[in-house]
C-alpha cells in the first residue's frame, strides 16, 4: 500500500516539475523583455522551490499507517 502511495506521489511530483519547466520555458523564450523575464522566473522558482520542499517534507512526515488504520480500520 505504501508503495502505491509513493508511486502516486511520484507521478504528482513529476507533474509539478513538468508545470514548472513549462512556465519557465514560456517566460524565458517568449518574454519581450529579458530583464522582466529574469525577475519573474526568479520569483517563480524561489516560491515554487519552497512550496515543493514543504510538500515533500509534509508527505514524508505523514504517519500513513495511522491514517490508513483510521480510515480503513486496518494497517498498511
Amino acid at each position, binding site marked *: 500500500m505504501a508503495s502505491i502511495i509513493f508511486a502516486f506521489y511520484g507521478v504528482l511530483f513529476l507533474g509539478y516539475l513538468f508545470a514548472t519547466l513549462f*512556465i519557465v520555458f*514560456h517566460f524565458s523564450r*517568449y518574454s*519581450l523583455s529579458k530583464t522582466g523575464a529574469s525577475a519573474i522566473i526568479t520569483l517563480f522558482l524561489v516560491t515554487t522551490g519552497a*512550496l515543493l520542499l514543504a*510538500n515533500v517534507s509534509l508527505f514524508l512526515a*505523514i504517519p500513513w499507517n495511522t*491514517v490508513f488504520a*483510521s480510515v480503513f480500520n486496518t494497517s498498511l
Partner: protein
Amino acid sequence: MSNYESCHFKGQRDDEVIIHIIHRHWFNILVQFFGVAVALLALLLGMATVQTLAAQGNIIIDPTLAYFLGNTILIFVWFFGFFIWIDYWFDVWIITNQRIVNIEQKALFVREISELHLDKVQDVTSEITGLIPSILNYGDVVVQTAGEQDYFRFRRIPDPNGIKDAIMRLIQARTPQGDLAPTDTIKAVFRKP
C-alpha cells in the same frame, strides 16, 4: 508611454523598432484571478477549521495530512495563477515602425503569430461596449486591411480610442511614396496626444 529599447520579439527585423506594446486591459486578468482568490480563501478557511477542531480535541483528519493537502492545493493554485498570467501576458500586440504583430497565446501549447504591414491598413475603428468597459475605458480596435486577412482585432485593450488615433497618425506619417518616416518622427507622431 514606456521606452521599448530593451524589448525584442522573435522575428523582429534589424531595422525594425518597437513603437508600442499593448496587452489586454488589467480588468480581464482581475476577473480570472478572482477564482484564484476564492480558492485561496476557501483553503485558508479549511485550514483554520481543521486547526480549531484539532485544538478542541475533535480530530477529523491527521493535522500533518491536512497541512499536506493544503500545501498541495496551494501549489495547484500557484501554478494555475501562473497559467492565467501566461495567457494574459503573452497575448500581445506589438506596433513597430513597419507593421503590427499580433502574438496570441490561445492555449497552453497553442501560440499564434500574425502580422500586418502598415501600408496594408485601410481603416481603423474602435469599439467600447458595455458598462464596465465604458467606465474603465477598454475595448477593441479593429484594423481593416487590404491583405488576405481582411481585419485585425485588438481585443479588450486599454484606451482603444487613443490607440486607434495613434495608429491613424502612424499611417499618415508615412511619406506619399509609402516610405517609412525616420523612427524618431514615427515615435513622436505615435505619442502625440
